[in-house]
Every structure is written in structure tokens, then in C-alpha cells.
């Protein structure tokens, strides 16, 4: 029994440490989760504006590159216009729904 006990203990300890780590993590991030998520969303909205600048009539010198990104942003674009209170896509060339 002795040797097996020795192997079990460190594993338990590891689990204990991991559990403490998880609780600390939750304690650290919990109160600020929403503020950070909102800040991240604001940044994404800005990025969206950059990508779709040309479609909105803002001259974009790097439109060659941002054009390539547009299909990748389609899903987020749909989320964005719905979040902004527009049920349908506001851009004619972007028919996401």
C-alpha cells in the first residue's frame, strides 16, 4: 500500500493546486469580465469599420487587403448589424441575411 500512496499524494496535490489556480483565476477575472468583453467588442467594431470602410464610402488605401478579409468577417458583420438594431444588412453588397 505504501508505494501507491506515495504516487497518489502528488497527483492529489496537483489537483488541489489546479483547483486553487482555477478559483484564483475566477476571482481575478470575474468582476471585470464584462468590462473587458465590452472593450474587446469596441475594438472589434473598429476593426469592422476598417474592413468595411470602402463600402461605407470612406476611402481606404488598403482596400485590396481588407477586401480579402470581408468573407471572414461575414458572421461577425451579421451579429454587428443585429446588435446595432438593424434587422437586415444595411449594405446592398453585403447580403448576409
Amino acid at each position, binding site marked *: 500500500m505504501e508505494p501507491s500512496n506515495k504516487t497518489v499524494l502528488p497527483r492529489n496535490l496537483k489537483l488541489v493546486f489546479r483547483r486553487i489556480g482555477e*478559483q*484564483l483565476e*475566477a476571482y481575478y477575472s470575474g468582476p471585470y469580465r464584462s468590462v473587458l468583453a465590452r472593450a474587446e467588442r469596441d475594438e472589434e467594431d473598429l476593426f469592422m469599420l476598417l474592413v468595411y470602410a470602402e463600402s461605407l464610402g470612406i476611402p481606404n488605401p488598403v482596400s485590396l487587403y481588407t477586401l480579402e478579409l470581408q468573407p471572414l468577417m461575414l458572421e461577425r458583420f451579421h451579429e454587428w448589424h443585429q446588435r446595432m438594431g438593424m434587422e437586415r444588412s444595411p449594405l446592398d453588397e453585403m447580403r448576409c441575411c
Partner: protein
Amino acid sequence: MNAILLMVLGLGGMAAGYFFYSRFIADRIYRFDPEFVTPAHEFDDGVDYVPTSKFVLWGHHFTSVAGAAPIVGPAIAVIWGWLPAFLWVVFGTVFFAGVHDSGAIWASVRNRGLSIGSLTGHVVGKRARSIFMIVIFLVLLMVNAVFGVVIAGLLIKNPGSVVPIWGAIAVALLIGQLIYRFKFNLGLVSLFGVAALYGLIFIGPSVPVSLPETVVGLSASAAWILILFAYAAIASLLPVWVLLQPRDYINGLQLFVGLILLYAAVLIGSPEVVAPMFNHNVPEGAPPLIPLLFVTIACGAISGFHGLVASGTTSKQLNRETDARFVGYFGSVGEGALALAAIIAACAGFASLEDWQSVYSAFGQGGVQAFVDGGAVILNRGVGIDTAISGTMLTVMAALFAGTTMDTGLRLQRYIFQEFGEIYGIRWLGRPLPATLMAVGCCVLLAFGAGGADGSGGLLIWPLFGTTNQLLAGLTLLVITVMLVRLKRPVWITLVPLVFLLMMTLAALLIQLNEFYRKEDWFLLSLDLVVLIAAILVTLECVAAFRKTEKQPVGDEL
């Protein structure tokens, strides 16, 4: 009397409150239902609504509500003797704060996790919501001004704490970077943070920093207040992950370390309480115990600020409704324990009654500095830490709490100004920088307006801050009571505290009004009048709400 007895009676009383009274209100009054689908599950979005372990949530709630206020208030209030402060903290925690906090969580959870401000609008009415916004604005204004003055006082009286207090900001900045940019393990970072903070506390007394008596024509106190507000303005504009989040975290850890050390030191050192049970020689000019005690100690007995935390963030993360008892009620018990530690430090940390009386020579004297000096002696006798270092440790603890509250308070005030800007179409006010400058301007005006050019008398508004805070608590209790009336449940558990708070608040405001009039302090008189009008409006709202509720049909939810 021995401080251990005070500690055992106090902690025992609050524990009994948790085990018996909170069980009673949870089962019979609020009737927490383990099967009820909480907003955290119903609207789980991984952002605002996240089911969270009750222990983690208790940690958040406790560390959010426990700050410098439960230290400053009790440490001022012991001027009337230790017994009144002790009784108000223990009974206040058991019958007021616990009921209020768990009730605020319950009210919010039963209403889709709405904040208490929105709840006031929904449950009581739109007018009550407007009053709520005014009271909140006043609370924030006063808390920022008072804490600026408190920290400035601490920095001047404890030059050894200047390096650790400002150094803690550097440590927090470093922690933020280590966690977000370099993805370091949080456990290791926490150990590093606490070690670095205590390292700074250890070296602090050897590198004392004092400002010269006058800095560009200003007194040292006024200069520190301006520096602090400049810092708070910058801090409140920074993204939260850079400074506020790691600072809050370190403060939380520091709170646990400080509380455990203080109570351990009382147990080991067994100090004698030198302060009188009732102070029969209250210094001239001190206001009467009733009603001022009940507004001098707000946080630590009952505080409206808790309702904001309980309904703002806690209720959205509650895993099961039954957890509200542990998170809300036991969270208040935690704060009560901090207030009790402040009472013990301010009453048992002095060599003799004469020493104590020389510190408490006037109302508003003693206060947080008495907590620091008394606590340092207790820590020295109990756990053998040198008084210079233990004093620095407690100064840093109080100053960091106050500082974080200032950062958060200014940020919230900025949001209010930005909202004003949006509502009234003032575009420039909608931007962060002008809104922050407006918020800082108001706070600085109050800090200096209340205390003269050196800002030293800013603590005169402490009882006014307490009154406003109690009004906020009154509004939350009103919401809970109206809900209970509609559910046809016993209302005395919230109605009695509500009536008591309103009576004490109104009486305290009238007494202070008279005092300010006699002193011809027109600035504070005007401020008192504003709070008095708010108090009368809250009272009228209460009467109107009950009359309206009587006529309404009974429903299960609101």
C-alpha cells in the same frame, strides 16, 4: 476588559446571526428556492451572466464591499466609547446589513438580475429612480472627496508609507502586464505581488518621504490631495486590466492577510481595552451619540453601497438562489469582522486611557490614524512585527482600500457625467476626458470646500457621507419591502431597519444642519440641505409606495 472577549463576543454574535437569523430569513421570508433558475443560468452569456462558485462569488462580494469605510467609520465612532460602536456593528451586521445584502441579491435575482437602480424604477416608480440617481451621485462625490482627504492625512502622518503606497501601484501595473501580456501563472503572480508589496512595506520606514510644508504655495495636505486626484483621474481613464483589476486583486489578498494577522495578534497578545465603555468625557463640540453613531458607522453596520454591488454584479453570477445566504449575508459578516477589528485596534492599542483620550481629543480626530497606531501596537505585541513596519502595513492597507475606491468612484462618476452629456445633448461632456475632469473638479471642490484651503477638515463631511449611504440602503430596503408586501410575506425584517434608518438619518441631518448654521459654515450647510431634501423625498416615496402597493393585486413576481 480584555480584547479577546470583545473579539469572541463580536465574532460569535455575527456567526450566530449567520447560522440562525440568516437561516430564518432565507427559509421563511425570502424563501430561497434551490430549483429557481437564476439569471446566471437563464441568460448565461459568458460575459455578464456567468454561474460562479459561491466561494469565489463571496470573495468578490466581500472584497468589493469591504474597503476603507468600515475602518474609518468605527475608528471615528469609538469617541463615544467602545460599547455603542461595538453593539451597532454587531447588531447592524446581523439585523441590518445581512438582511439588506442577501435581500438585494434576492430582489435582483427574482427580477432578471436588474440593478437596484432599475429595480427602484420598476418596483417603486420612476420618481424614486430619479432620487436614487441623485443619491448615488452624492455618495460617489462624498466618498471620493473624503477618501482623498483620508489618504493625504495618512501620507503626511506616516512618511514611511509613501514608498509602499505608490510602489503598490507599480506592483499592480507589473502584475497586469505579467498576466495579460505574458500569460504568467496567476498563483505565481499572486505570490510575487504579495511578496513585492510586503517587501515595499518592509523597506518603507527606512526611506520616509515627506512633502515640504508648502508646495507652490499650497500646504502639504492640499498638495497630496491634488496629486491623489490627478492620479485617480489618470487611473480611471486607463483600461481596467492595466491597473484597476490587478490593484483590486492585490487589495483582496491584502485584506485577508491583514484581517488574519490582526485577529491572530489579538488572540496571542491579548491586549486590554483602554478606551471607556461609555465615554462620559466626550470632547466639547462632539455631536450626540444618538443619532450620529448610526451615520458615522455606515459600512460595517449597513451600507447602501452593498446594494449596488449585490444587484450590479453578484446577482448576475449567482449559481443557485440559496447561495444568496452565504454570499450576501456572510459577505456582510466579513465586513462586520473588519469593522470589529477597527474598533479593537482603536480601543485596545493604546497604553492608557490618557493616551487614548489625547488621540480622541475632538470629533473626527483619531479615526483611521488611531486604527493604524493602535493596530500597530497590537500586531507588535501579538506577532512581534516592529511597530514601524506594522504601522506601515496598516497604513498601506487603509490607503490602498481608499485609493481603489477612489479609482472606481471616479470612473463611475465619469459615466454619470457622460450619461448627462448624452441625455442633454452636450456632446463634449459625453467624452471620457472632459467628463473625468468634471468629476475630479466636483470632488476637489468638495474636499477643499468642506475643509478650507488645506483640505484638512474634509472629514467633517464623513457623517454626511454616512447619511447619504444610509439613504441608499433605505431605498434598497424599500424595494425589498414592497416586494415582500406584494408577496404577502412578513415585512418587519426589512421595515423595522428601514424606518430606523430613515429616522436616524433625518435626525442626524437636522442636528448637523443646526451645527453648520451655528458655525456659519454655509458650504456644508448647503450640502446638508441637499441631502436633507433627498432624505425627505426618500421618506415620501416610502409612504407613497406602501399606499400604492396596498391597492395592487398580489403577484408572485414583479
